[in-house]
């Protein structure tokens, strides 16, 4: 495991998302998976798809149970909301303290923009966890058991997974806009290094969100769409 991290330190937040703590000595990935009760194949596929942008075994990923995928997605949500966003927030506050005089107005704008972004991201995540995921579990359960009632068919017709796929864009665009505004249009802040750190954190968050959405849109959504279709075909009254 240690070798993998030396090879690509960007995987650190990924392994922490799976609950693996540092200090694992010379243990192999397999040993750690056993220790932490993780699905070795799933863990490897996720690590690889984060490590190599061209590696994206869509078909392979779709073979994993929905529960495993959603569990992972939930952990990433948690990472965004409890670690990444508060970190950027804290850095922005530091920058705004330093820049109170000269760029006070601009800093207020960034703060306000970022707060709005934060709210939007939280609402989006909350919706996924409270509405979308339970819906997916219901669909999967019905599919697995080969049983569905007319209520479920009606629900699928009313709310299909396709509706949810289209909601990602705006959250991503907002973060991109904020980065671009800081890079191109704001007067330079006093503490350049701090500003660079903030931007780099934002870029990392952006990349992570992108990979996250990729798993949702290319793995989860097609899988659910397939099950929805199957249920509709077999249980339409």
């Amino acid at each position, binding site marked *: 495991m240690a070798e993998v991290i030396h090879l690509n330190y960007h995987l650190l937040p990924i392994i922490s998302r799976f609950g693996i703590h540092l200090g694992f000595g010379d243990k192999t990935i397999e040993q750690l998976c056993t220790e932490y009760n993780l699905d070795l194949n799933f863990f490897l596929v996720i690590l690889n798809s984060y490590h190599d942008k061209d590696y994206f075994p869509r078909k392979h990923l779709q073979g994993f149970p929905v529960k495993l995928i959603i569990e992972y997605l939930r952990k990433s949500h948690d990472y965004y909301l409890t670690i990444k966003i508060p970190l950027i927030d804290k850095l922005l506050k530091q920058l705004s303290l330093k820049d109170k005089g000269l760029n006070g107005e*601009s800093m207020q*704008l960034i703060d306000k*923009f970022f707060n*709005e*972004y934060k709210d939007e991201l939280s609402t989006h995540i909350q919706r996924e966890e409270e509405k979308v995921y339970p819906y997916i579990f219901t669909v999967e359960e019905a599919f697995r058991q080969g049983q569905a009632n007319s209520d479920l068919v009606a629900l699928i017709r009313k709310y299909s997974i396709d509706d949810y796929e289209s909601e990602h864009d*705006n959250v991503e*665009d*907002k973060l*991109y*806009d*904020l980065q*671009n*505004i800081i890079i*191109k*249009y*704001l007067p330079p802040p006093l503490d350049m290094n701090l500003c660079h750190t903030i931007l780099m954190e934002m870029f990392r968050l952006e990349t992570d969100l992108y990979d996250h959405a990729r798993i949702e849109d290319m793995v989860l959504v097609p899988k659910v769409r397939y099950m929805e279709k199957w249920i509709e075909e077999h249980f339409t009254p």
Partner: protein
Amino acid sequence: MDYINVIIADLSQLSRLGLITLLNRMKYPFHIREISTPDKLTALPAKDQTGIFLISSAFLRKCPPSLIHSLQTRLDSMARLLISDGEPGPEKNFRFSDIIDSTDPGKNITRKLEKQLSLIYTQKEGPDSPEGISDREKEVLRLVAVGLTNKEIGDKLFISSHTVITHRKNITAKLGIKTIAGLTMYALINHLIVPEEKPDTQ
């Protein structure tokens, strides 16, 4: 985009205040100057300035002919609006862009001002900003940032919603900003709008 200069030449302080209230409601980046007596008109800005010049009939009647003549030359590039009280005056010596009846309801006055503003934005051919945004695009951007819909923007600028969408696409391509929140922030940074104009909720 710079602020839009507005000069109000009116003897009555109440009328001036009334106009200022109307103008502020229109939410343009106005830079308003009040002139209470003709002698203060001599301190007017140099030639070729764009913007809106509002003058009341009563004020105009107090102006000596020589002043009226020089005003005509100096204010040539501004939209000149007479606020008429219905009494005949020396306005025949002065070419006005439009005439506002002082008893008009505020809505009509706003409409006439909007029309002049639209012309100002169309005619303005100043050098483009570093981002290559034209003045017309800036105007669209401004209205997007204050939260208007494409249809509302079209109505305000006398263009179709389709044209508004084209402008918006160009703006996004030039600035690299896609969201309304981002465009609003750009507009605030560049003083295209003042902070109070920004809608509180997105």
